[in-house]
């Protein structure tokens, strides 16, 4: 069997995982200047909400008295559960944004009690946001453990297997995920390039006062961005719920890939994540396939170090540089 085909098939799952792990983080980091160390836990929330919905235990979620998914026909139960996961996580992100990241809720309370705001928003305060979200991550892991125990019953992986000759096969679902990852990037491209939202969001973080005086409702932009980033994390959780064991610490398994991909990708969310997912996914697939999983993992990290060192602004800056060089020549 051609090793090329094999490598290609192995490439898809790693690409999907890196891209899906990174997008939510990239948006919140790239647009709001917030490093979300609880990103993995947002993914966990997505997976939990999906799994609970699918297992007909949605009633165990706060504020959901009944289980709407349970009455649906079988074929749409999983998609409906996943959608629930995305929405719950987006909503959760919104709550975190209002209470911690923007400090709006504590400030609202403080203004009515001691007469002045007490919290400075975390926007563009990389390091403070890191500590705050680290706290959130600690709280969430244990809170979920206390509420739902050490593990949830899993969801089976849909779609069965895809055989590609010589007794080799892969879970079809993993290939589907690669497609979803590509689709997510495409959608983000549309959102950021074809609509003004992305531009306004970036303008907001670059100069909030000026954005306001050009008519941008910056509060809403921040909320929307954080909810979008959280929703994407939720989507990742939802999509990986069938593949991964559902335990409170499961988010940790996404965090490293996500960070590495965001930094390797650089400033541009879509192009950066695409290139990072492509490069790192390929490196991982190649080394894991030929020399084993350990080699794959080490090489992924080593390549990340090399990229940061030699292209400090990330792979997407490389594209710009090439474009400039090209302009210079022509």
């Amino acid at each position, binding site marked *: 069997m051609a090793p090329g085909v094999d490598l290609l098939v192995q490439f898809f799952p790693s690409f999907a995982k890196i891209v899906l792990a990174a997008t939510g983080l990239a948006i919140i980091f790239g647009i709001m200047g917030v490093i979300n160390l609880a990103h993995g836990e947002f993914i966990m929330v997505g997976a939990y909400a999906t799994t609970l919905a699918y297992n007909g235990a949605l009633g165990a979620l706060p504020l959901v008295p009944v289980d709407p998914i349970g009455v649906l026909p079988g074929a749409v139960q999983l998609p409906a559960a996943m959608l629930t996961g995305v929405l719950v996580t987006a909503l959760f992100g919104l709550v975190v944004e209002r209470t911690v990241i923007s400090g709006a809720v504590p400030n609202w309370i403080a203004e009515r009690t001691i007469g002045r705001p007490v919290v400075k928003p975390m926007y563009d305060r990389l390091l403070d946001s890191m500590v705050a979200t680290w706290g959130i991550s600690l709280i969430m892991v244990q809170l979920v453990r206390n509420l739902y125990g050490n593990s949830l019953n899993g969801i089976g992986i849909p779609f069965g297997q895809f055989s590609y000759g010589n007794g080799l096969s892969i879970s079809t679902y993993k290939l589907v995920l690669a497609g979803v990852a590509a689709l997510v990037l495409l959608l983000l491209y549309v959102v950021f390039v074809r609509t*003004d939202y992305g*531009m*306004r969001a*970036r*303008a907001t973080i*670059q*100069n909030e*006062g*000026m*954005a*306001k*005086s*050009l*008519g*941008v*409702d*910056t509060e809403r932009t921040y909320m929307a961005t954080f909810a979008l980033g959280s929703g994407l994390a939720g989507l990742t959780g939802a999509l990986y719920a069938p593949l991964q064991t559902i335990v409170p610490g499961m988010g940790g398994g996404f965090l490293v890939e996500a960070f590495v991909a965001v930094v390797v990708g650089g*400033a541009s969310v879509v192009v950066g994540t695409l290139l990072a997912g492509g490069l790192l996914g390929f490196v991982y697939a190649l080394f894991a396939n030929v020399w084993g999983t350990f080699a794959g993992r080490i090489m992924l990290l080593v390549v990340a170090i090399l990229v940061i060192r030699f292209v400090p602004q990330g792979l997407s800056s490389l594209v710009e540089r090439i474009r400039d060089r090209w302009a210079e020549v022509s």
Partner: protein
Amino acid sequence: MLEVDGVRAGYDSTPILRNVDLSVEEGEIVGVMGKNGVGKSTLVKTIVGLVEPDEGTVRFDGRDVTDTPPHERARSGMGYIPQGREIFPDLTVEQNLRMGESINDGSSALLYEDVFDYFPILDERRGQKGGTMSGGQQQMLAIARALVANPDLLLLDEPSEGIQPSIVQQISEDMRAINEDLGTTILFVEQNLSVIRDMADRCYAMERGTIVDELGATDLEDEETIASYLAV
């Protein structure tokens, strides 16, 4: 059109403005002059809504906007060109302009093409990052960004800063043209004598956080009077 009434404002409990009264009629071009640090920029920011007054009211178009957030004031027709350009550094020139345009309800008479007539360099550099433009180019971009929003009231904070002399003259002329052609009301802050003279119908003079004088058209003919408010 614009009415500022008994405004007291400042930053974090440091009071800067004291009891400021000022009004601008529709279609007027009004200047504000004064030495460094007297609070001219603070006044403009208070009008735009970036500084919240402790006392007093700001009325725009007949409505009390004192508690209206800045983005709503912008949408209801205030355009702002800040001191120090405040370009979005990582957005391209074109995106910076689109940021301005995005509040425009579409009825704009003044679109890109006209703005590019004033500042052709912006047309050439559509794809360049705002932050890499030269100082003066950024100033032009800031002006253009406010113009494409087609505001009813344009607030300019030292528009001539860092701009080459020939374009400074041109800006004064362009502003008058915009005022006449589109009826845009203009309030501007300046320290450049000739710009004040060329542009303003009348002019307020500020000292230490408050308005101390108002100069009419004839006073503005007199260089000495103006200079007395700008120098020691």
